[in-house]
């Protein structure tokens, strides 16, 4: 593989991995704090799905990079600006409505995206996709059912769900942002164009929102920046938590 293509692929795979690691971490913060026992299991379940996908992607990126960095180095030992996750996945938990909506937004994007990865020429990514599709399909179902029940629930649950939509919807546009590295992978049929799944994403969101009695807002000012390493203030606190162990006990393993 040409060096330039390899570098573009590494960057794109790390970007994908970052989305999964950071959202997985946000979900894991619910462990022991979920509103009911059943959710206290299901949210970490989903977190483990995402972190598992992140591991596969980081390992692959590390192998492609060939720089003796491990998946742990990539996950835990970069600075905030080196993470390229979209801002959506780092948004704070706030409340259960925010967490379920954020999950729905991301899963509704990743399911068709992984599906399209299966048509690409990278066999490792196809392998990751094959496993992830089933996991993320459940995330859509789980989060989607909650969005419906909260949106079409009590006055208070509807108020919170609508507040979550107002807060998070402007971040969804970044799911479709393509940088130069991703474009290179798209042109070489290694990764699909996020734009190609926009309609499917929108269909899923529309279907859930119409059941949840939520109007799909118009985004006049998309909130982006994570793909370029410009993160929100909350991200530093997240990383402090996430990286604490590796920073304090370098090379720690279990």
């Amino acid at each position, binding site marked *: 593989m040409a060096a330039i293509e390899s570098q573009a692929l590494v960057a794109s795979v790390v970007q994908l991995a970052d989305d999964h690691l950071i959202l997985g971490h946000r979900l894991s913060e619910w462990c022991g704090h979920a509103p*009911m*026992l*059943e959710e206290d*299991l*299901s949210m970490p*379940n989903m977190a483990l799905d995402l972190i598992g996908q992140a591991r596969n992607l980081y390992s692959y990126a590390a192998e492609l990079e060939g720089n003796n960095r491990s998946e742990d180095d990539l996950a835990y030992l970069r600075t905030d600006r080196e993470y390229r996750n979209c801002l959506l996945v780092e948004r704070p938990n706030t409340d259960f409505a925010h967490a379920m909506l954020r999950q729905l937004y991301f899963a509704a994007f990743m399911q068709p995206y992984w599906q399209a990865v299966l048509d690409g020429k990278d066999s490792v990514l196809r392998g990751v996709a094959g496993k992830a599709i089933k996991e993320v399909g*459940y995330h859509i*179902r*789980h989060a989607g*059912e909650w969005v419906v*029940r909260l949106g079409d629930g009590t006055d208070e649950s509807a108020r919170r769900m609508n507040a979550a939509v107002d807060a998070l919807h402007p971040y969804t546009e970044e799911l479709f942002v393509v940088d130069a590295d991703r474009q290179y992978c798209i042109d070489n049929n290694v990764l699909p164009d996020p734009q190609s799944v926009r309609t499917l994403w929108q269909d899923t969101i529309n279907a859930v929102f119409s059941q949840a009695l939520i109007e799909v807002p118009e985004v006049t000012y998309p909130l982006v920046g994570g793909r370029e390493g410009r993160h929100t203030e909350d991200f530093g606190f997240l990383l402090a938590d996430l990286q604490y162990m590796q920073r304090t006990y370098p090379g720690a393993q279990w």
Partner: protein
Amino acid sequence: MPLWEVFIRPRTGLNHKHVGSLHAADAQMAVQAARDVYTRREEGNSIWVVRAEQIVASDPDLAAENFDPAGDKVYRHPSFYDIPDEVGHM
């Protein structure tokens, strides 16, 4: 939130077996919660949930009347037949 009883079938061909209970707002959420709570370690491939209040149980006070009479009727067990080897496990 209503209580649901959860039944899991460990493998195709076996029966659903009671594994526990959980709280959920409705049937669909109960199936999803059962999946999350009771099948995390590959316990099965099928889930039933039943509203706990829908289960009709025998009266524990009538246990002696109900079950003791069967105690001395050993001839009801089909264990007095010679089963040919080729039949295998029954």
